[in-house]
């Protein structure tokens, strides 16, 4: 009974003092591990949360979201957890008899078998196709306890030529890409560059000039820093208008 009363008071304050923009924020609030998001038997714990008695408690640092009865936390930090079907970028660290060993920034190493290359490669000339230190875009074909298997068979996969690669937080990749690629297309148009974003947070940029390369990287770093802000695409457009 007391709780209901408290809620009512809160609602009144919300209507009076908090503007509509801040009210939007209340739907997605930042939480830290151990923080109580909501209490009550009506809610169900989703991804990144757990139930503790009457409360739903955050397991991870991120943004808490309410969708119907389910509460989930969209993580903002953490390691890359490889899943089947992810397109990742990786650096070749070694060549064996049967394929290439690739570092994709996850806990275990990834292996690209020689049969998974799109064209026939002779075992004697493997380093001419992909050498140590090269960057490849590959798809995760399977995740086992021993390691990760990759494949190059697919559209847009293979060895990357030109440009450069840098690393960001893999949990922020969805924001970099945006809804149906809106953010990444905006950056591509404004910098006339070619960008590939791996699910592991490795990003490849190839632009026609050095200035555009720097601009594209700064734009992505801007998105990575401002992930928790809503309406980021408009902010990005403004950023491009103000750039130099």
């Amino acid at each position, binding site marked *: 009974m007391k709780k209901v009363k408290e809620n009512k008071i809160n609602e009144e304050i919300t209507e009076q003092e908090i503007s509509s923009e801040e009210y939007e924020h209340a739907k997605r609030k930042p939480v830290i591990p151990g923080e109580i998001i909501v209490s009550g038997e009506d809610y169900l714990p989703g991804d990144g949360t757990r139930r503790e008695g009457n409360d739903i408690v955050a397991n991870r640092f991120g943004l808490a979201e309410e969708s119907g009865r389910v509460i989930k936390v969209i993580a903002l930090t953490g390691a890359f957890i490889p899943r089947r079907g992810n397109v990742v970028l990786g*650096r070749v*660290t070694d060549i064996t008899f049967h394929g290439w060993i690739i570092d994709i920034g996850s806990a275990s190493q990834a292996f690209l078998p020689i049969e998974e290359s799109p064209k026939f490669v002779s075992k004697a000339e493997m380093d001419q196709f992909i*050498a140590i*230190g*090269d*960057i490849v875009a590959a798809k995760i074909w399977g995740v086992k306890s021993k390691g990760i298997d990759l494949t190059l068979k697919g559209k847009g996969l293979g060895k*990357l*030529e*030109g*440009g*450069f*690669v*840098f690393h960001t937080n893999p949990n922020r990749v969805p924001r970099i890409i945006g809804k149906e690629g809106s953010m990444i297309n905006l950056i591509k148009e404004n910098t006339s560059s070619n960008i590939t974003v791996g699910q592991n947070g490795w990003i*490849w940029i190839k632009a026609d000039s*050095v*200035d555009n*390369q*720097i601009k594209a*990287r700064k734009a992505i770093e801007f998105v990575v820093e401002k992930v928790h802000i809503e309406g980021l695409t408009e902010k990005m457009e403004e950023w491009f208008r103000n750039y130099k």
Partner: protein
Amino acid sequence: MISMETSNLTKETLKKMFAEGKRFDGRNLLEFRDISIEIGVSNKAEGSTRVRLGKTDVIVGVKLAPGEPYPDSPDKGNLSVSCDLLPLASPRFEMGPPGFYAIELPRLVDRAIRGSSMIELEKLFIEEGKVWTVFIDIYPINDDGNLIDASTIGAIIALKNTMIPVLDEKGMIDYEKKPTKKLPLSKTYPFSFTFYKLGNSIIMDPTREEEEACDARITFGVSYWNNQYMVNSCQKTGELSFSKEEISKITNILSKKFDEMNEKLKKFL
């Protein structure tokens, strides 16, 4: 340096950018990042500093203890610099016995300080067979390149703030008494400047990404004494060589860089 860590693509791109005189963070090739200094970060140490050079973050502590002098300098104090490359600072640091870089880094700091005779080791004599030993401990908290220069800055500022603890009748340190005496230092102090080479370009204060792409580096310990600039120490590492012209170009800007750094850190020295 550790060129295996970086990709071929990024190295080529950085080479092209340096040739045009451009960097990702918008600095000039020979420009330092912002430095911020915090003094007295540890209450157990006799002197301590935290240096932030961009995202590079280093804590340096100075500890004093009475000890035996070395046989070749029975009337002088000892100086010992050590460094722990903690795995939390960078993915390239691993647990286990110290590697090449973990030995080289404190040696470079040690030689810059020793060569400039910043600490007056003769005044650290206590009695026959007993002198003060100055321990400088370097702990990188975050490695975003150029640990050497950041560590030297941290070491000299920590030394400037070091107090000598009080000894009791038995010759043991009495930590309950408040120290009043400062560590005897001369007027001079060193800075180290590390120049990195990639292709035909020479850069200073690289980020980790740039540092990993570079082929060679050379470190100079520089001090100012008797109205002249002195090179106290010098060490080169890496696969490629520096040409005669490059070295003379570097040595010509050392005095300018020393003045710049001196101006930035004036209030701490």
